[in-house]
């Protein structure tokens, strides 16, 4: 299937990725160079890395899958679930992250609150990043297997096909390890920017060909049910739209709690802005990222919509097809098959579709040899950028917030630089272990992701109060976080999505309420967790002794000087950019309502 030209493109890319690391190696002299890119990254580079670090496999494959399943309403994950939070973190929160000179998000918590709040955040974050990068690796190795990328070279060399999974895992781990060890965060950021352009270059022609084939957006509208092509249609009730969630749960759960919790507090993305070369660049980083982010639905969601809109066809040669048995899929999307090769059906007898294959099958369907190599390279690039984002965030939090804080406080900078490199090695080794765990114990991974969701849900309440209410205390923040997590777990244990079985889907205590969909349940879990954390933090703060005001200068809004915007051109001013981004997002929502 793949020919010399495809392999050449892939190999050239890998050489470049490692080459960038090799060139940057001589600039890494101190731990600040390694962990924070020497705080020297221009705003547009940091902005694209900010976007790309989050652009893992989950996004490219997952958003295509959601596009096929939910339609253009998937764009809510961008226009409601990302842009407002990105604007907020740039305009309002970056002055504290960057201005406090904290080297990580947990370190900001140490400065603002106390040691225990930092410890809680640092440890849970470190564990989470390792598992996410493991899950990302696992997904990539699985995809390589399904797409048969390495089948023919393995056959030629006489190696068993079962080794493809191990080979894919090891090669991706080694490449990411190589370039991070060499150039640290700078290397990760540079590669993320390259990956950003590569992903655009790989997917733009796909969307162009696909749209041309189905007669453009009007053609899609004519073929598909209106519920696929409108993002706000039927949002007044959870039962009248494809997402299965009503507008309030969507805007509060996704648009406020989850999205602000991720974009405004997750060190994985914030680290990119902390590496910027000035306060203004740091503030502009998420705002610059917001522009491509707003357009990404067209690149990653449309392939899914096109895949489902095409007439059902013979899928021979595409992924997920075994032999020439007639398929019962839709468009380019095959049915999910059980071990016996029979399509899996739900309780109503409808065939379950393997939506995750929407985007990969689009690539195989439209791309001839040559550009197919480019498309697959883009897919691999997206996996690696996600993985590298996790690894660089992990090695920083480990070294500064765990190792330097609790294990070895007084070592030389050289020692911490060495520790960072070691952390990169064992971080990646643990990710590989997590990837193997995912292959064997699917349930454990599901449960872990659930626990992470409980831990993450209340975070934004803590940061919001910490930054904008000087009376918030360390005890308040700590108890607030814990009770928010408990509230999330309780809510999950007491509710169930429609048709779910009590267990990992919820209802493991008792079933008090049934949500119309898993998404609605997730959003409401987040809303409950956030509200609990918010209220408990306020109450406990009022009951405990306040911090001295002079300790909080530069950490809290009312005690910090506003960053000046004098001498900046209009397009360098965060507030101007913010207004432009919000207006453009509103416009997109209106056009695709």
């Amino acid at each position, binding site marked *: 299937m793949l020919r010399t030209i495809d392999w*050449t493109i892939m190999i*050239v890319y890998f050489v470049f990725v490692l080459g960038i690391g090799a060139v*940057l190696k001589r600039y890494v002299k101190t731990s600040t160079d390694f962990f924070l890119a020497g705080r020297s990254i221009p705003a547009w580079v940091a902005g694209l890395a900010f976007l790309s670090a989050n652009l893992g496999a989950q996004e490219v494959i997952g958003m295509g899958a959601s596009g096929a399943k939910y339609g253009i309403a998937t764009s809510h994950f961008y226009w409601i679930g990302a842009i407002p939070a990105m604007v907020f973190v740039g305009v309002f929160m970056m002055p504290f992250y960057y201005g406090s000179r904290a080297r990580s998000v947990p370190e900001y918590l140490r400065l603002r609150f106390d040691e225990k709040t930092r410890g809680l955040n640092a440890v849970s974050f470190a564990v989470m990043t390792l598992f996410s990068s493991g899950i990302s690796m696992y997904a990539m190795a699985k995809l390589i297997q399904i797409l048969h990328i390495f089948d023919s070279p393995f056959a030629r060399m006489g190696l068993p096909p079962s080794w493809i999974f191990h080979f894919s895992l090891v090669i991706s781990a080694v490449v990411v390890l190589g370039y991070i060890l060499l150039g640290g965060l700078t290397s990760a950021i540079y590669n993320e920017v*390259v990956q950003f352009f*590569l992903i655009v*270059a790989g997917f733009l*022609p796909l969307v162009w060909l696909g749209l041309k*084939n189905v007669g453009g957006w009007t053609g899609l509208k004519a073929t598909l049910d209106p519920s696929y092509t409108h993002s706000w249609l039927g949002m007044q009730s959870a039962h009248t739209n494809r997402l299965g969630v009503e507008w309030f749960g969507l805007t509060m759960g996704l648009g406020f709690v989850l999205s602000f919790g991720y974009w405004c507090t997750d060190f994985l993305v914030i680290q990119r802005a902390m590496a910027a070369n000035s306060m203004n660049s740091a503030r502009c980083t998420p705002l610059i990222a917001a522009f491509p982010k707003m357009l990404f639905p067209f690149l990653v969601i449309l392939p899914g919509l096109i895949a489902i809109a095409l007439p059902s066809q013979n899928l021979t040669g595409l992924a997920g097809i075994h032999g020439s048995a007639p398929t019962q899929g839709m468009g380019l999307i095959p049915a999910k098959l059980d071990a016996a090769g029979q399509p899996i059906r739900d309780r109503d007898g409808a065939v379950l579709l393997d939506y995750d294959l929407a985007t990969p099958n689009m690539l195989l*369907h439209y791309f*001839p040899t040559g550009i197919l190599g480019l498309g697959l390279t883009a897919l691999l690039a997206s996996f690696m950028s996600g993985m590298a984002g996790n690894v660089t965030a992990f090695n920083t939090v480990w070294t500064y917030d765990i190792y330097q804080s609790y294990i070895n406080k007084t070592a030389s900078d050289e020692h911490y630089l060495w520790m960072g490199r070691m952390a990169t090695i064992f971080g990646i080794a643990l990710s590989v272990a997590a990837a193997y765990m995912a292959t064997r114990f699917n349930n454990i991974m599901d449960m872990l992701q659930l626990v992470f969701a409980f831990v993450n849900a209340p975070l934004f309440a803590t940061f919001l109060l910490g930054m904008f209410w000087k009376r918030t205390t360390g005890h308040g923040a700590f108890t607030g976080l814990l009770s928010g997590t408990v509230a999330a777990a309780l809510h999950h244990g007491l509710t169930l999505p429609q048709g779910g079985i009590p267990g990992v889907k919820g209802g493991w205590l008792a079933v008090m309420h049934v949500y119309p969909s898993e998404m609605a349940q997730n959003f409401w879990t987040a809303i409950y967790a956030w509200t609990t954390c918010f209220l408990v933090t306020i109450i406990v703060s009022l009951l405990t002794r306040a911090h001295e005001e002079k300790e909080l200068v530069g950490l809290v809004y009312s005690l910090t000087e506003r960053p000046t915007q004098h001498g900046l051109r209009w397009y360098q001013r965060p507030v101007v950019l913010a207004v432009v981004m919000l207006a453009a997002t509103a416009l997109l929502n209106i056009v695709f309502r």
Partner: protein
Amino acid sequence: MGLDIRLPIGFLFAIFGGLLIAYGALSDPAIYQRSLGININLEWGIVMLVFGAIMLLLGRRGTKI
């Protein structure tokens, strides 16, 4: 930070563009049935080459954005 990021991007895209153009010019037209009869390798190769050249030019001059 030492290396201007636009240079590696420019090189990479120029190489990819060149490879796709060369392959597009030499390949059997029958393979373009799947891309709706469009020689997508040639066309997209030109786009990538132009983008790469612009990046190289900006990087060489050190234009600040």
